[in-house]
């Protein structure tokens, strides 16, 4: 079953099981969503439960907050990652805080589905990775599935949660296929999983980067490096315990995500491992991430997105093997890129 279809089946199941569940969003009715994730649900559940909304993201989330106050469990679709910002105030200032504000009297069982990430050749605002904004916000849970089975199970668990959940769908994986047990009992939303055990280096990925990381693990294995691959699944809370345990065995850590590096999830995870597992580290941890740039035009997105080679290069670096940054002194004062490239072209040692 395709990833997108698995999410569709999860939504179908939630609508069937709980009459308080309803879906809201732009174009989710007759069209079935721009990615067809809600395909067929309007016909089956009717316009009171599959609600096409005006084109106003703050309005969508704000009315979902009101519906939750009335006892409903709204599942909101934000059409693309880059369109969530008009709703940012309602998410951060109200959705995330209402439970604490009311001392637990008002629950906010709202799920916000966001197709996120790049790699599909989209125009601006259609390829972003906004997870850091949300995992920095107390009161929210943030999750991202990487497989059809998780796509199905985690949307059901997110809807069943009494906390607001930002559910990030790796849009470039919508057509990935995999076995899906539709009757599986959804596990906890809070844990990561080891997709591949290995003793040499811990690679941490989530959402769209899991596929790339798996490929990297396979290639690395051919070169004699055993990668332990962790799929985080949950970004808030982070399953830091799982990562710590793994790093205590491997002594090496690579974290990879599409999102920009500064202030990102990789920074959080590396800092946590440095605090809690410093003495087990054999090498400085490495982040393989998107660049600190506005998401580039489609023809240049490959420059931004971490690909197989960049993940492998990160693995080489923590393994102490030859890698792109060998000639760079990490402690040297920063140069302008022009100076650096000029010196490099002149054949000078960068250090």
């Amino acid at each position: 079953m395709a990833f997108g279809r698995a999410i569709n089946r999860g939504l179908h199941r939630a609508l069937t099981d709980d009459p308080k569940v309803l879906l809201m969003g732009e174009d989710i009715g007759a069209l079935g969503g721009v990615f067809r994730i809600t395909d067929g649900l309007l016909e089956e559940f009717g316009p009171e439960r599959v609600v096409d909304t005006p084109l106003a993201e703050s309005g969508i989330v704000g009315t979902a907050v009101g519906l939750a106050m009335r006892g409903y469990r709204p599942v909101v679709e934000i059409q693309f990652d880059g369109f969530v910002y008009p709703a940012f105030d309602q998410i951060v200032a109200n959705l995330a805080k209402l439970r604490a504000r009311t001392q637990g009297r008002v629950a906010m069982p709202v799920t916000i589905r966001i197709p996120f990430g790049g790699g599909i050749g989209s125009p601006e605002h259609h390829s972003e990775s906004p997870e850091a904004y949300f995992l920095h916000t107390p009161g929210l849970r943030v999750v991202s599935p990487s497989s059809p089975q998780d796509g199905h199970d985690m949307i059901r668990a997110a809807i069943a949660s009494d906390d607001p959940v930002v559910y990030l769908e790796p849009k470039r994986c919508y057509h990935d296929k995999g076995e899906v047990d539709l009757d599986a009992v959804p596990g906890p939303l809070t844990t990561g999983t080891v997709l591949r055990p290995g003793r040499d280096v811990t690679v941490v990925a989530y959402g769209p980067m899991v596929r790339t990381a798996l490929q990297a693990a396979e290639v690395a294995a051919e070169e004699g490096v055993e990668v332990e691959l962790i799929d985080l699944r949950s970004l808030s809370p982070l399953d830091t315990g799982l990562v710590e345990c793994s790093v205590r065995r491997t002594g090496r850590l690579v974290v990879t995500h599409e999102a920009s590096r500064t202030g990102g999830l990789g920074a959080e995870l590396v800092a946590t491992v440095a605090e809690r597992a410093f003495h087990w580290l054999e090498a400085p941890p490495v982040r393989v991430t998107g660049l600190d740039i506005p998401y580039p035009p489609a023809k240049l997105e490959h420059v931004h997105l971490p690909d197989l080679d960049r993940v492998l290069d990160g693995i080489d670096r923590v393994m102490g093997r030859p890698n792109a940054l060998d000639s760079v002194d990490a402690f040297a004062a920063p140069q302008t890129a022009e100076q650096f490239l000029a010196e490099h072209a002149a054949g000078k040692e960068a250090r």
Partner: protein
Amino acid sequence: MTDVDLSTEAASPPTCPPDQLQVLDAAGVRRPQPELDPWLGDVDEAMLARLHRDMTVIRRLDTEATHLQRQGELALWPPLLGQEASQVGSALALRGADVVFPSYRENGVALLRGVEALDLLRVWRGSTFSGWDPATTGVATQQLIIGAQALHAVGYAMGVVRDRSDAATIVYFGDGATSQGDVNEAMIFAASYQAPVVFLCQNNHWAISEPVRLQSRRHIADRPWGFGIPSLRVDGNDVLAVLAATRRAVERAAAGGGPTFVETVTYRMGPHTTADDPTRYQAPEELEAWRRRDPIDRLEAHLESLGAEVEAVRAESATAADALAADVRAALALLTEAAPDSVFEHVYAEPHQELERQRRELALHLTQFEGGGQE
């Protein structure tokens, strides 16, 4: 009662909107007002005395809270002085199951809907963000993000429709909030889904220091017509006009007629909050002009015009106000603050491992100090 003028079919603005609908003129004399009179059939002297008492009590709450702020008992207070008719008239128009979505200034409305005065003051003391249970009081937690609650009210009303209930939802906001995207989006959603919502805008002429003309070049009540929402513009210092207009809007919502917008034209006679200094931006003569339109004075003049025993009404209101003030003072003296660990309690419904870790870390930190955290 018919609803001809406000039917959705008539969704175009009046070419020349009346300045504002009044029931009581400036001298307190009741004038015929066909737009509002049908909703005032039960008004008698006892009802007028009740309105007087409620306005006096919330004014006393306001005065008392302002004093308590000056004495250091409260961190801040947003006064409602001058807006008593708008708050009392609209609150008394509501029925049992109707639900209020207030901003931070509707302390009078909340009190009249059954929220304990102490629960209001605890918020402004800085003890809690919400002192009461929205489910039992029908009053949502007050909203400090300007206009954000308008969307919550509409969403709640969308749920009411799905529940086949006839409850109405009323959202309070000020003139400043009408510039917010959320209030405009709320009108769009309410109109599209015909949600049973009353938009109650207290135009008190000031958004902190910014005059209403900065928010809107036309009457605020003109704007909803563009969204397909009928509106009423009433004298917000005329408690009967506010009562009738809100009743009319609530009745329309409950009958499935959709949203209505009510602008009550009033005046904030005090500061924005106790931290504000209106003398920096407000002309004294303007304030003086509005003092002469005091809503309680207007009602007393009306009682006099009816030959009622105004002194007796005033005395009874004062007794109720004194009782509230005494109760509040006594209750505040007994207040204790929450334990440090409580800050972790309701962030999530289900356990969050990182937060649990921080909770343990803080507990360990505090055990280093005798007395559990008091240095």
